[in-house]
């Protein structure tokens, strides 16, 4: 039997600690960003369920530690700058 130690009231003291769990290994597909086509509009950023897409002058990039490969970014990109590819592990 595993007994887990809990805090009083189940209080979690560390905000945002779920970042310790890397959900990236759930992924079957991965987004490939074409920064030639990318217009830095930020639409992918708005609709990413994980909130892990960053955009700068170089273009857009997803934090692959957490990307679950849902493909919303590729589907919503108006410039077709994102394509989904099968992840090779």
């Amino acid at each position, binding site marked *: 039997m595993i007994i*887990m130690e*809990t*805090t009083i009231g*189940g209080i*979690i003291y*560390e*905000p*945002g*600690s*779920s*970042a*310790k*769990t*890397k*959900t990236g290994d*759930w*992924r079957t597909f991965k987004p490939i960003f074409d920064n030639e086509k990318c217009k830095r509009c*930020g639409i992918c*950023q*708005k*609709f*990413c*369920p*994980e*909130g*892990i*897409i*960053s*955009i700068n002058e170089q273009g857009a990039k997803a*934090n692959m*530690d*957490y990307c*679950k*490969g*849902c*493909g*919303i970014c*590729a*589907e*919503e990109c108006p410039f077709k700058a994102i394509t*989904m590819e099968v992840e090779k592990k």
Partner: protein
Amino acid sequence: MNEPENELLAPGHRTCAGCGPAIAIRQMLRATGKNVVICEATGCMEVTSTAYPETSWKVPWIHVLFENVSSVASGVKEALIKQGKDDVKVIALAGDGGMVDIGFRALSGAMERGHDVLFLCYDNEAYMNTGVQRSGATPFGAATTTSPAGTEIAGKQEWKKNVPFIAVAHGLKYVATASIAYPEDFQAKIKKALSIKGPKYLHVHCPCPVGWGCDGAKTIKYAKAAVETGLWALYEIEEGKLKLNTKPSELKPAEEYLRGQRRFKHLKEEDIKKIEKHAKQRFDHLLELENSEISLLKVL
């Protein structure tokens, strides 16, 4: 602005790939900022955002039962007022099951007592967390594990419960509906709601790829199609006066929304026509209400 370092919901949450509610919560936190306390009922976003001993939240957050999120939010708000922290906003957050069914009594009580709380329902149209059971917010015709499509019935046989209008019937000064496909509209409504003192109600529509049986990449596509077909309408009711926020010149055929979702795949041509007719009539009534001078609060 939308950079990950400004995010108030950390990644690593356990929502399914393509989760609509996760997008709703992210968009919500962008609008609220840090000065907020979130009270959340049991549901998908509660379970997946706080796998003990971890949490995705970077704002104060409390988990309560399905039944009593509105009661707890009332208490939190009153306690903050007693402490002189009047500026801290309080949101009672629940899914459709936790808000419009199980938590409905507490919601009604809290709205009637007039607490300065925003009641926010993220509606994915069934009890997804427990394995897709029908809720009051499940639409007509949708197959769930407790309204299966078979020889007896073709999915749920009742229409979606209209909770925004029930909230208006409590005399609320601000009630609105939103969709994750229209983030600017949704966020403007949150900001407006939080600037108003007293109870307010917001209902945001967000697809669930797992429960609806659709491609996770198309979450936003379906959210948008629901609005474009009139099966979900974006409006706000201020002081009893209704204003539609999207007015397509012509509603798209319901088929564009219904096809591609497993929960509707049993629907026959006549069922789709029935749903389409209902959406059209409802939309016309909303237009009529918009053009009418009568405040809905006057009939209370």
